[in-house]
């Protein structure tokens, strides 16, 4: 009996403690972070989290986020989407309906960002994905934005780069057919390559499904096809396996990658096999200057390694979000109204000078920005090779 009474008393007490906090919630701005903390690409989630925490500590150091002359506390709601499409959708719904976030940053990979963007758009909550390059993420979705270039641009850039750099005419592609990003980019690359070299110039277009560790039959086929270069738009964990197996099967021609290669863990997993290879990226850490260098140095000091593209893009996206919230003028406490205000403010941003370069936003909320071609040096660093701007 006594025990039950204590519990009841505790419950009553706890409502007293919680209720005022909930009422005070108006002075707190919540920002949702939808990131792959576990699953296939956990390093991407880690970079997202670290960059977001760095941004938050800046806001905290300034005493809060100033909107219309008033300081607001900022809270980050970081949720794990397990790098699964269905979990990313669940996370978005939870953050929008339960946590009542003002705006969402993430998810990173297109496989999650495409379906999650649909949720954000339906619930009328602005979402900005830092890293998703697939066009479908923002297409016909007024509430969804992004912080990076798009695959219809990246594909042709890579096709042009390989043509100019190596003067090759026949290419092979190996991609994951079960994931939006590699599949989309593989097709854009194929189209661009065939535009340059005529039909049939992509001599092998081979695929696998997520989590396959063995690519020997595909690579044997690619080798026999007479291709001069292998393009593989895969994530960092698969890059290590593909490159190693290709070399073991006697493939000694170039292998070219896309922006998904730009993880801090690619070289760690791949080792010497990856040295000397090219891939497209959002920024090159080696040789950076100005604000970009300041960010890299700070990140490196706090976390012990050079930040990858995802971390830098997340940082930029959060600054874009910050600018939009501040442009809103006031936070009314009416969530629907504030969310719409943030989305309108995001849509009004036309130019942004980020650490990953200058961005000009189109009508659809997509930035126009440069692609950087990076070479993996003999020390395993990502060296700036050239930059291609639209």
């Amino acid at each position, binding site marked *: 009996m006594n025990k039950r009474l204590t519990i009841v008393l505790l419950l009553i007490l706890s409502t007293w403690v919680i209720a005022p906090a909930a009422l005070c919630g108006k002075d707190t701005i919540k920002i949702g972070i939808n990131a792959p*903390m*576990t*699953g*296939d690409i*956990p*390093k991407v*989630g*880690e970079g997202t989290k670290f960059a977001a925490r760095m941004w938050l500590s800046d806001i905290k150091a300034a005493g809060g986020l100033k909107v219309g002359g008033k300081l607001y506390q900022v809270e980050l709601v970081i949720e794990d989407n397990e790098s699964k499409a269905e979990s990313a959708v669940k996370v978005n719904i939870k953050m929008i309906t339960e946590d009542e976030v003002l705006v969402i940053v993430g998810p990173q990979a297109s496989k999650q960002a495409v379906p999650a963007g649909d949720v954000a758009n339906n619930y009328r909550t602005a979402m900005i994905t830092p890293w998703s390059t697939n066009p479908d993420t923002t297409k016909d979705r007024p509430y969804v934005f992004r912080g990076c270039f798009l695959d219809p641009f990246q594909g042709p850039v890579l096709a042009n780069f390989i043509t100019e750099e190596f003067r090759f005419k026949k290419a092979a592609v190996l991609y994951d*057919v079960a994931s939006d990003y590699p599949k989309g980019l593989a097709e854009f690359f194929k189209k661009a390559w065939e535009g340059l070299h005529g039909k049939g110039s992509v001599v092998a277009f*081979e*695929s*696998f*499904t997520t*989590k396959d*560790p*063995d690519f*020997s*039959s*595909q690579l*044997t*086929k690619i080798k*026999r096809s007479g291709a001069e270069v292998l393009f593989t738009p895969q994530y960092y*964990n698969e890059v*290590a*396996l593909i490159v*190693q197996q290709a*070399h*073991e*099967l*006697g493939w000694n021609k170039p292998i070219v990658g896309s922006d998904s290669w730009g993880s801090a*863990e690619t070289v*760690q*997993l791949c*080792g010497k096999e990856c040295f000397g290879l090219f891939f497209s990226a959002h920024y090159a850490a080696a040789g950076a200057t100005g604000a970009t260098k300041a960010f890299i140095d700070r990140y490196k000091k706090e976390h012990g390694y050079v930040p990858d593209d995802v971390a830098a893009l997340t940082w930029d996206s959060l600054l874009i979000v910050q600018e939009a919230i501040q442009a809103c003028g006031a936070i009314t406490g009416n969530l629907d109204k504030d969310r719409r205000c943030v989305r309108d403010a995001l849509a009004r941003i036309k130019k942004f000078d980020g650490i990953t370069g200058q961005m000009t936003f189109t009508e659809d909320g997509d930035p126009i920005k440069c692609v950087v071609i990076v070479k993996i040096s003999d020390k395993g660093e990502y060296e700036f090779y050239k930059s291609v701007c639209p």
Partner: protein
Amino acid sequence: MVFFFQNLVNALQWGSFYALIALGYSMVYGILMLFNFAHGDIFMVGAYIGFGVATGLVALASMGALALPTWLILVLTIIITMFLTSLVGMMVERVAYRPLREAPRASAAITGLMVGIILETGNLALLGARRVRFPTLIESTTYDIGGVFVTNKKIMIVVVSLLLMLALDQFVRRTKWGMAMRAMAFDYAIVPLMGVPINTIAALTFAVGSGLAAAAGILFGVAYPVLDPYMGIVFGWKAFVAAILGGRGSILGATLAGFLLGFIEIFVAMIFPSTLRDLIAYSIILLILTFRPHGFFGEPYSARLRL
């Protein structure tokens, strides 16, 4: 022709993994009439233990505490890991299966799935989600034999797998324990009445199966050096298919079916677009099972099956 032989080599390596894992499934199923769905995850645990042991040994060797050549490190890693993973397998049997021995078979199968999830998420909690790279124990050397590229790793994987299968065959056929296992497979109900200790045999079966899975895990780490906590799931399913295809409890059957599965997967991708690989590969296996429902070496009657 070169193309064909290259794929043959690829398939031999790929099939070795299926065969080694299928053996563990097949033994537990044959002797204890139990689907050990956690077996794929025991393979994963083996790979991770192997990673730990190998990293430790490499560190000791580089500090100069142990002057070991790398091939000896690999041999030691395999032996120590097989032993440790056998203990894990015995523990799984003790904790998850022994209490349910009299329970309906479906409950035991479900338990296996749960143990699998516990092992996966336990690993996630212990080591975090990051990928680990299996240390390079043998430098890869590629031999070009008339256009067919073979690495020393591939040869090593196939040879070690075949040696282990041979050892298992001898163990089951020549030793007293092996005889007890075969007897148990013959009649699960009567043999314990003859004084064969069922608990010991069950534990031993799990230990041997887990040891083989551990060996597969290390060889996997050598061939595909990126490990993740969920790597055992799909492997487990496919090896399970191989075990059934081979016939209940048949060592030769599981071995052959494992290799066959590897061959079908590789050669389907060789002939057809790789997108359709699993679709066509597993349709073929479904077709085989339709005509041989007991697998290659399974018994034609199933009166004793308790499922």
